[in-house]
């Protein structure tokens, strides 16, 4: 296990990366949300993660799981809408799985706790056209890759991101059953879900951060079977 300082640094780096990415994708996410929602997902997510990233100095003495918890509470207060409780509340809840430090094992527990809380809070299942459609394949693939296939965490995470990407694509041709998009009924078909999309972006940045800290590159290909190959 990496020492506490390295773990904290990696969490803060991930936070910066996610914040930068969501700033870059703000208008794209808002475009997706304007089709089937209330056109605020991009600005809400950007604002929440930027606020968290601004608190970097306040986090510099905390244990890694406390940093994660505080990112969650900052999102709760600053994201707004349903995304505040779903992203922020679930990060806050899942952070307790990291109390003993960030390891491959605890990261699986974190991912499962996050998924459980999102499903519990929002009431969505796979096929509801929500972030759950990206999360379920991602978390299941991550857990299986680590626990059954004994893949190194970086490769497991890359597979999980691929799975999330396929989940995002799956949201386009289906009808929304949860969230504001569900009020559009059949008119929601044909639009990609913004929450699943931002979930994918966050996961891609977690992967990029993990590549940096676990020292390796992986090639992703969501459609290939043995999707992940190590780059030499």
């Amino acid at each position: 296990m990496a020492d506490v300082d390295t773990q904290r640094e990696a969490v803060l780096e991930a936070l910066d990366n996610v914040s930068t990415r969501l700033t870059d994708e703000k208008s794209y996410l808002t475009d997706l949300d304007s089709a089937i929602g209330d056109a605020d997902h991009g600005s809400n997510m950007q604002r929440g993660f930027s606020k968290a990233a601004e608190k970097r100095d306040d986090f510099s003495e905390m244990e890694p799981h406390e940093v994660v918890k505080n990112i969650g509470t900052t999102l709760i207060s600053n994201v707004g809408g349903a995304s505040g409780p779903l992203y922020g509340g679930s990060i806050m809840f899942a952070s307790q799985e990291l109390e003993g430090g960030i390891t491959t094992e605890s990261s699986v527990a974190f991912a499962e706790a996050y998924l459980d809380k999102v499903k519990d809070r929002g009431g969505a299942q796979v096929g509801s056209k929500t972030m759950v459609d990206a999360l379920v394949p991602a978390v299941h693939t991550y857990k299986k890759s680590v626990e059954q296939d004994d893949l190194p965490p970086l490769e497991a995470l890359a597979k999980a991101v691929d799975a999330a990407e396929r989940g995002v694509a799956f949201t386009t041709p289906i009808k929304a059953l949860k969230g504001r998009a569900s009020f559009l009924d059949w008119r929601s078909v044909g639009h990609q879900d913004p929450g699943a999309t931002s979930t994918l972006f966050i996961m891609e940045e977690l992967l990029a951060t993990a590549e940096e800290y676990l020292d390796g590159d992986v090639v992703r290909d969501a459609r290939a079977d043995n999707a992940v190959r190590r780059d030499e």
Partner: protein
Amino acid sequence: MIGLVVVSHSASAAEGIAEVAAQMGGGNARIVPAGGDEDGIGTSPDRIRAGLEEADDGDGVVVLVDLGSAVMNTELAIEMAADVNAAIADAPILEGTLNAAVETTSKKATIQSVVDRAEEAREYRKLN
């Protein structure tokens, strides 16, 4: 006395519902509107939490909600306000708040009795 918090996406809707319900409750009910968020339309866990603390005199609080994030943010606010005993009523927000306001002024009111009275409003029909 059991307090009430009204959580709507619109701050003015929450205030208006609280106003109508206060009249039904004979002016004695404790009804706190907690609608809208910093940007206008929406719900805010911090506002709801403040509403819970304001409405609670130690006997507990029942929350009436509109939909979607109002429910999620209220659940979160209840978790955050650990020292307030609170429950959400699964009821139409206006009719439920009226019923609840009447019940809170009963001497025997409990959180459960207020929730039950609010949830009776689910059956109400407007036209016979």
